[in-house]
């Protein structure tokens, strides 16, 4: 079946402002050759530490930033090519919920106005758009009579995020990107919003791309998971595979560093050693090798490609799992 979203070789480098005139340009390799796909109706979770490129990836997909390289196909049609999907059409099909619930709403607009903005921009007449906005407010659990005319500063964080979800749904998209959408909420509210999201997904047959640094939340909501490190995709697989059979040393370390309620599990040493390397002009080879307990010569010379290991969907970018890589621990 054609995946709903297919991404190949996505790349974005940001130039670093240099003080001098003539020094060679330095680049932050924010997203480097990232590929993945999402099937319709599923949730792909993207995890990684701050600065690994998750949010940049989201913005590249939404075309809020222009990628340096890469191909994106939506429902089989290439995006932004001559006979492919236009930007406008892309944005009808793919929407995003941002992290900062307050900053993502215009303080001067009533919330139903913010929600109705998208449809109006696509030609829906005013009253109809407002009616739809109010409908969506009900859908996300906010009474339109009470909340429709309110301003963002009159709502709580959880309520605002519901408004943001309603806004994202206003154009009837098929794919919704949730960029750290619940990260800033209190835990209890976070749970409510997560349940709302899952409920909406079932009701409206949505597909989600869920970005977060919170491993537990991603485990709860995702079907498949992509692990990113310093701009690269290091492991991808079903949530089962990733959380119970992690292969990449980074994934293993991430999972091991989760605080747990089990008194038997005591962490004496940090699973991750060393310092993260400079994201500007990263060193050759595997980007994780400076912190990897299993790093060897080959890791510093050759960059490991995302290779399948065992189960069909499970792939790892690590020389320990790449055939004939030269790594002593080749499994």
């Amino acid at each position, binding site marked *: 079946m054609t995946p709903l979203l297919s991404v190949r070789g996505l790349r974005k480098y940001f130039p670093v*402002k240099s*003080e*001098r*005139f003539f020094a060679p340009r330095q680049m932050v390799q924010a997203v480097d050759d990232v590929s993945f796909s999402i099937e319709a109706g599923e949730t792909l979770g993207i995890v990684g530490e701050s600065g690994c490129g998750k949010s940049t990836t989201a913005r590249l997909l939404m075309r809020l930033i222009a990628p340096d390289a890469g191909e994106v196909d939506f429902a089989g049609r290439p995006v932004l090519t001559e006979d492919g999907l236009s930007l406008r059409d892309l944005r009808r099909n793919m929407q995003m919920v941002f992290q900062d619930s307050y900053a993502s709403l215009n303080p001067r607009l009533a919330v139903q106005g913010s929600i109705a903005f998208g449809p109006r921009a696509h030609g829906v007449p005013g009253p109809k758009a407002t009616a739809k906005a109010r409908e969506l407010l009900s859908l996300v659990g906010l009474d339109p009579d009470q909340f429709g005319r309110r301003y963002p500063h009159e709502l709580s964080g959880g309520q605002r995020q519901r408004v943001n979800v309603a806004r994202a749904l206003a154009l009837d998209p098929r794919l919704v990107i949730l960029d750290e959408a619940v990260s800033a909420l209190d835990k209890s509210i976070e749970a409510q919003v997560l349940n709302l999201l899952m409920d909406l997904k079932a009701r409206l047959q949505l597909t989600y791309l869920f970005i977060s640094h919170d491993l537990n939340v991603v485990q709860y909501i995702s079907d498949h998971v992509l692990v990113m490190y310093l701009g690269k995709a290091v492991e991808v697989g079903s949530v089962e595979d990733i959380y119970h059979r992690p292969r990449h040393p980074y994934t293993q370390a991430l999972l091991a560093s989760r605080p747990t309620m089990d008194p038997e599990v005591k962490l004496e040493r940090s699973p991750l050693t060393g310092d993260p390397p400079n994201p500007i002009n990263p060193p050759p080879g595997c980007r994780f090798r400076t912190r990897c307990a299993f790093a060897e010569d080959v890791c510093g010379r050759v960059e490991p490609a995302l290779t399948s290991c065992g189960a069909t969907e499970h792939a790892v970018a690590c020389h320990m799992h790449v055939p004939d890589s030269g790594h002593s621990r080749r499994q």
Partner: protein
Amino acid sequence: MLYYILRRVLYTIPIAIGVSLIVFTLVHLAPGDPLSAVMGEVDQKMLAEMRASFGYDKPLPLQYLIWLGSALTGDMGYSLRTGAPVFGTLIDAAANTMVLGVAASFVGFLVGASAGMFAGYHHGTWVDKAVSAAAIAGVSIPHYWLAIILVIVFSVQLGWLPSMGAGAGASVLSWDAWKHMLLPAIALAAIPCAIVARTARACVMEILSMEFVEALRARGLSERRILLHVSRNALPTVLAVIGLQFAHLLGGSILVEVVFSWPGTGYLLNLAIFDRDIPVLQGTILLLALFFVLTNLVVDILQTFADPRISRA
């Protein structure tokens, strides 16, 4: 940081060129002959000769380049009225304005900065309210009106201070010179003083609201030491504003100088406008504008040293 300074200095060059272009265009924008000022007084032949000697028969862009080139070497031509070299006249006038400006600044900024900081520190008390009220009044006051009031009170009614000129005193520090300087300096200083006071007050209030001040108090520092810390933090912004106001003051002194007939650049400018003395007009505006640009540059650079937080990438 050094690169920032270099970049900033280099950037000044196109600005300066742009300024000179504007000055030249402005002055030659006016309808009418540049020599209209003297037209009634000399005959046609003389006029033609003057035109040639001043270079007014050449195409405008060429005139601009010639003027700019010679201005850079100190030759700004000769006054159409007096025949004296423009540069020399300008320098003398500029010296007078500078004297006035420095006097005004010294008192004005000292008073303004201290009053402002004091008010900010004692926010909410009557002192703060009084200073704020005075500052708003100061910012709204037409300084030429203030000048007239000062003249009325101190010269006409009380007869204490002279109302015109810079005095015949030999040196700038003579009592005669001071007597003549006092009123114009006060008039000139009013608005900048108020602006500095407002800035200082706002700055101090903002710093006081920062958490590190609470931390200092919690550590048991005396109020006086805290005041020192706060002032140190406020200083870069306040100094920057002082620098800018000083530059504005020098450039905008014309209205006060006219009231007091103070022989400075403003007075010269005024004469030149009404005499349509093109060379003097060009030279004066150019000098004042370039000085403004220079002062801005210096203030920017000094701020880089003073406030380490400002990221100059």
